[in-house]
């Protein structure tokens, strides 16, 4: 008989330790991330095959777009670093510092989204839309799905920061939100090379 069953006869299973030694909230986020990674994987695989199989592929990105993408990527990777600071400060019990870091991450997320939308409008101005051909369809679908994740993340970060500062959420919530935000960053590391860098105008 296990130790937990001795402690509460008949309810041993309720007290069993998680095999992963992490809270159920965090495990749930990991499972969400894995399923979301497979979703992005499907889109990127589809894009990759169509891209390589299409000889006359549109290459619309000039150096201004590449500079825009460099700034966007810098903002997103930096936001992951500030999120690490937020998680660590919340674990150390420094509520004010954790909240500041989360708001800073939120601002970087907003900068990323704004630059992304600006890039979209520049493409619209050149007649490239989701209905203008195979490039537009794949580009706006993949970057749109990622942008949706960024906007959701920004909203989640704002809510977590305001509720955590009012002691309505715990450091565990900050950590779980951080996991999601790092995942958004991680997906971008595949979107940039495949969708932007292989389509630079020559």
């Amino acid at each position, binding site marked *: 008989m296990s130790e937990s069953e001795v402690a509460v006869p008949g309810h041993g299973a309720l007290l069993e330790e998680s095999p992963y030694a992490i809270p159920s909230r965090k495990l749930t986020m990991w499972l969400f991330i894995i399923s979301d990674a497979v979703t992005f994987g499907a889109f990127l695989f589809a894009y990759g095959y169509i891209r390589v199989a299409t000889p006359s592929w549109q290459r619309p990105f000039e150096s201004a777009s590449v500079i825009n993408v460099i700034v966007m990527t810098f903002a997103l990777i930096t936001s992951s670093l500030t999120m690490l600071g937020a998680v660590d400060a919340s674990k150390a019990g420094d509520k004010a510092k954790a909240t500041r870091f989360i708001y800073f991450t939120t601002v970087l997320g907003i900068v990323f989204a704004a630059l992304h939308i600006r890039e979209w409008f520049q493409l619209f101005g050149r007649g490239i839309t989701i209905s203008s051909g195979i490039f537009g369809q794949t580009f706006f679908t993949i970057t749109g799905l990622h942008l949706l994740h960024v906007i959701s993340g920004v909203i989640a970060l704002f809510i977590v920061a305001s509720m955590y500062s009012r002691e309505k959420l715990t450091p565990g919530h900050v950590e779980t939100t951080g996991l999601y935000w790092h995942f958004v960053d991680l997906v971008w590391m595949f979107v940039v090379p*495949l969708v932007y860098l292989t389509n630079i105008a020559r």
Partner: protein
Amino acid sequence: MSAETASGNVIRKYLPVYFVLLGIFLVEVFLAFRSFSTPLLVAMLLLLALCSAALGLMYFMHLAEERRSLFLSLIPVTIFVLLMMNMIWSDSVRLLQMRPPGQ
């Protein structure tokens, strides 16, 4: 150790990973301006993206600090599913072109 010191340390601790991620990205940009064939360029960029993703996963998402059972439950399964997807998508391209393989 004060809370202030603790949260300052974590930024310093992960700063090398941050710079490596930025470095890999700049290498990707550099490669994109070189004249490689598209399949070769895609392969090189994907390899670098995988390196970035592994760093992000292990250090930013702290998978390296979790129990190995979590890693073994999540990552091999995900890779397996993605590889299986790879099998299906090649077939979907064939269907797009409406011709049997090899013709």
